[in-house]
């Protein structure tokens, strides 16, 4: 059974239609990449799954149950956790508190506790008492990932976790993802860096202007197919 799926998901911001009938699915333990240019609807898809954008109930199905109209806090308590775009750490809270608040609505025991998050990102142990926003961008991203892990989610949604970070920092963060996967969590990775997304994903979706333009196994999709799905045109072969 699918862990989570969306069925003919549509979403709008006022007059602006952001998603047009998106069918998406992810199985337990799977890593799925969502690629697409700015404004393609990637973040809107995640916001619909997490309940920040309320939908009609049966547009989002989690373990056979319609959750499209649930509030974000209830969806999170079902084991769906999000690393939001822009990290969105709580500025009034220290690094330690930002991590602990991720466990506020914890569902039973699991691999992820403060110690294992500090094992994953050792730098955070040194900075644990600093205000979260005093950290560098990369360290803040580590806090955001750790915070989402603290509830021991079965589905982790990562929105643009490499955005605005230096390549060396991105490498460190992506090095942590396989370890997170080993803990059994399924992951949705929204990413503009196509090569990086494909390197860790089992399957990939490409969105363009609110529609799925490509779906396939990460090892099967060709560069040409991605180019066509991403830009809506055939790639011009350089002579």
């Amino acid at each position, binding site marked *: 059974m699918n862990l989570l799926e969306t069925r003919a998901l549509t979403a709008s911001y006022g007059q602006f239609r952001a998603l047009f009938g998106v069918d998406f699915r992810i199985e337990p333990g799977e890593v799925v990449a969502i690629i697409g240019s700015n404004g393609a609807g990637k973040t809107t898809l995640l916001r619909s799954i*997490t*309940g*920040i954008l309320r939908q009609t109930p049966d547009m989002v199905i989690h373990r056979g149950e319609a959750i499209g109209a649930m*509030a*974000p*806090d209830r969806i*999170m*308590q079902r084991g769906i*956790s*999000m690393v*939001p775009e822009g990290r*969105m750490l*709580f*500025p*009034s*809270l220290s690094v330690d*508190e930002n991590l*602990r*608040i*991720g466990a*506020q*609505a914890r569902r039973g025991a699991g691999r992820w506790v403060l110690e294992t998050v500090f094992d994953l990102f050792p730098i955070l142990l040194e900075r644990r008492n600093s205000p979260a926003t005093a950290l560098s961008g990369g360290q803040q991203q580590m806090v955001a990932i750790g*915070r989402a892990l603290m*509830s021991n989610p079965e589905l982790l949604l990562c929105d643009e976790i490499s955005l605005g970070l230096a390549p060396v920092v991105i490498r460190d963060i992506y090095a942590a993802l396989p370890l997170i996967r080993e803990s059994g969590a399924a992951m949705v990775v929204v990413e503009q860096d196509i090569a990086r997304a494909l390197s860790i994903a089992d399957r990939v979706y490409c969105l363009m202007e609110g529609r799925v333009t490509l779906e396939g196994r990460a090892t099967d999709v060709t560069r040409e197919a991605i180019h066509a799905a991403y830009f809506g045109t055939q790639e011009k072969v350089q002579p």
Partner: protein
Amino acid sequence: MIWVETVIQGLLLGGLYALFAAGLSLVFGIMRLVNLAHGDLIVASAFLILMVVEFSGLNPFMSALIAAPVLFGFGYVLQRVVLNRVLGNDILPPLLVTFGLSVALQNGMLELFSADSRRLPAGGLENQSLNIGLATVGTLPLMTLASAVIAIFLLNRLLYATALGRAFRATSDDPVTASLMGIDPKRIFALATGLAMVVVTLAALYLGMRSNFDPSIGPARLIYAFQAVIVGGLGSLWGTLAGGPIIGVAQTLGAQINPEWQILSGHLAFLIVLILRPRGLFPRARD
């Protein structure tokens, strides 16, 4: 020597203002809600304590202990049913709603309790005094200040040393992201208003024992509370504890110069702080 005594009296008066202000400060700090009915809620709470006193024959302290959970529940429901619906990016709807609540409370109290001024029977406590060397101070004002310090200390511990306080601060920073942590912001806001009503009960207890009250005095208490909050710095509870006594000292010093100047000097001190430090004396680092 008279000036030292005047300052001490002002500090003690400030304890009452800090108690008026603490609930306002808490609610503003957590949800950016300016509750214009705060003064009337204090007066209404004093009437509730008085009713408990009259029905049960208990002293005001025990009666306040009985009233506190009732008022916590009232605050919780008020936030859940009314105020949560108007909270948003626009600050005008909550201002209008709390202003309406203020008018409704005043008229409701007038209907129920008449315009007569009332007092909580403190059993002679209001006439007792202590000699602390520099001055002779009333026992009740001293208890008021001590209660203000303890209440604000406990509120700070709650905010900075408990999981609930962490959820309060996170929700205050960003309710949407807090909901992604499994926190229900509406419930957090309701708990905050409930908690503020417990502090309001304490303020009402001392207000009612120290002076007469009637349904019309709420708005003036709101002004003192406001001034204490703004002088101390919006959203800072320790700032509020400092702001109350600053207004109090200004008032007693003014009254010492000329009895007609008491209220005026409090307002002047408030204006001076606004001109010199528009964000208050101890502003939160970030807003």
